[in-house]
């Protein structure tokens, strides 16, 4: 397969919600098959960056290309057939069933009055099985726990059959068990199915554990960009987060893990 190497690339972009840019003079290239994590303190522009890359916001300058094509020139539906987005927490006001929510992933593939074919339903069922919520398919979305609901949203995203999946803090409101479950799922999708993943994570340890590459944002710019062990050093973290940490190595996976240190308690000892 000789695809363009970069699935998505930003060239010197600036942009934000208002005229004042949150992301400044930013460039990034993501290769097909990567598992890319975006980390950084609150207000560093992680979510904004994701919104720019996924066409929710338009950059005030610079261009973003998807497989070599300017995303502004792409049709909204065409873009939705190639990329999908999972947000932090999806509040669904109406009692749709899990299957109905998942089948909505077929919307970009279907015409307005076109019903779902057998194949569409098969794709949805595969996604449900992959995310381990197949047994819930007839339940209503408001009957699920937040971990289950998040997996249903991922299942809908997979039903779009994307090449690239954006996720904005997909584990923010979940307990540690569900966090690992979601990220293990993403890891599986990435390593087995070749799905490219761009994920904003708050939790540095989860980012270190799962991401092949991490970009560390600070004030709308890339502070560091590289492998977890190179990016997540105590010097880098202390410089940006202004807090004392110890960085150790996970004895099982060899990945770095970050331990916070309370200066207050150190002083008392």
């Amino acid at each position, binding site marked *: 397969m000789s695809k363009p190497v970069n699935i998505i690339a930003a060239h010197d972009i600036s942009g934000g919600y208002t005229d004042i840019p949150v992301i400044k003079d930013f460039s990034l290239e993501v290769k097909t098959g990567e598992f890319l994590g975006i980390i950084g303190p609150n207000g560093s522009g992680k979510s904004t960056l994701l919104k720019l890359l996924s066409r929710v916001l338009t950059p005030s300058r610079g261009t973003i290309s998807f497989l070599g094509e300017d995303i502004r020139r792409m049709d909204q539906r065409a873009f*939705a057939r190639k990329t999908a987005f999972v*947000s932090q927490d999806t509040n669904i006001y109406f*009692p749709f069933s899990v299957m109905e929510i998942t089948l909505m992933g077929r919307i*970009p593939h279907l015409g307005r009055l076109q019903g779902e074919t057998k194949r569409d339903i098969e794709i949805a069922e595969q996604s449900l099985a992959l995310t381990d919520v197949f047994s819930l398919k007839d339940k209503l979305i408001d009957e699920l726990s937040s971990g289950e609901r998040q997996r249903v949203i991922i299942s809908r995203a997979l039903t779009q059959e994307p090449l690239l999946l954006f996720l904005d803090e997909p584990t923010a409101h979940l307990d540690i068990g569900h966090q690992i479950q979601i990220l293990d799922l993403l890891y599986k999708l990435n390593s087995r199915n070749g799905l490219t993943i761009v994920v904003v994570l708050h939790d540095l340890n989860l980012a270190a554990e799962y991401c092949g590459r991490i970009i560390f944002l600070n004030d709308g710019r890339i502070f560091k960009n590289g492998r977890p062990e190179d990016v997540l050093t105590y010097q880098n973290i202390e410089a940006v987060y202004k807090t004392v940490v110890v960085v150790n190595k996970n004895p099982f996976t060899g990945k770095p893990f970050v331990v916070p240190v309370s200066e207050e308690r150190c002083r008392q000892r």
Partner: protein
Amino acid sequence: MEKRHLGKFLLLAVLLFIAVVFAILNGPVRIPFKELFLEGNRQILYLRLLRVLLAAITGSGLAVSGAALQAILRNPLAEPYLLGTSSGAGLGAVLAIITGLSSFFLPAVSFLGALVSMVFVYYLSKRGNRIPVESFILSGVIVSLLCSAVIAFLVSVSPNEALHGVVWWLWGSLQMYDVKLLLIAAAIVIPSMAILYVFSQDLNAVSIGEEDALHLGIKIEKIKKIIFFLTSLITAGLVCVSGVIGFVGLILPHITRLWVGPNHRVLLPASCLLGAVFMIVCDLLARTVYAPFEVPIGVITACVGAPVFIVLMKNRQRGK
């Protein structure tokens, strides 16, 4: 997926048929079945038929618009009159009477008033190229309040006796003497409802959230504008013929959603049929409970709709 709802649609069709027949056979003037089809009663039969058809169109239009608006605004309190079209129509009607236009022009001027207020709400809520949901709702409320204030002022200073009629008319009535008016309303409402149905999938996606819909490839701002325009058009077409009939556009979509679920490909047609049935039955009650006096239809819709809704809601909670 629609197959499991087939029985429900069949039931709705039967209900609609029964309601139509029953409403034509009954009225404030009791006429035995055999005599109803005699030459001398033809006029009564004709008027009843007009009324039933107007009730059906009004109920359908309001219920479908309400369902669509609740989806795009993701607000359970959304209803067709929220957008200010009804007050604009009322203001148009009052102005028509004050300036002494003949009653023939009243619906036309009222429709014009509705369109003006619709355009006004649209531009008021626009932020650049976007229509944020909150500013949409607020603009509708503000325009409504403004129009109501002007109506109240005009009614209070006008010596014109006919204005008292307008107040009654504004509270809703399905009295109908002119088949042309009915046809015009139908020509506006029925195609608009059909176009709304075409956008069912878009409504499904937007009802989950605007950003979610965007990521499913839906041009949300365009869709919101289309839905806003269509629902306003339906409301305008109805208000200028039958006045402001509350409750239906608000509660009927909820009742239907409890029954068939929130998928708009099912919800919209089901609301359409159930709205028609509900309105025909309510109008029959309005005509007959205090005959020969007529109870305002809005009173009936609320008195019948509220208990039904409460029972359904409680049942659903218990069912969980």
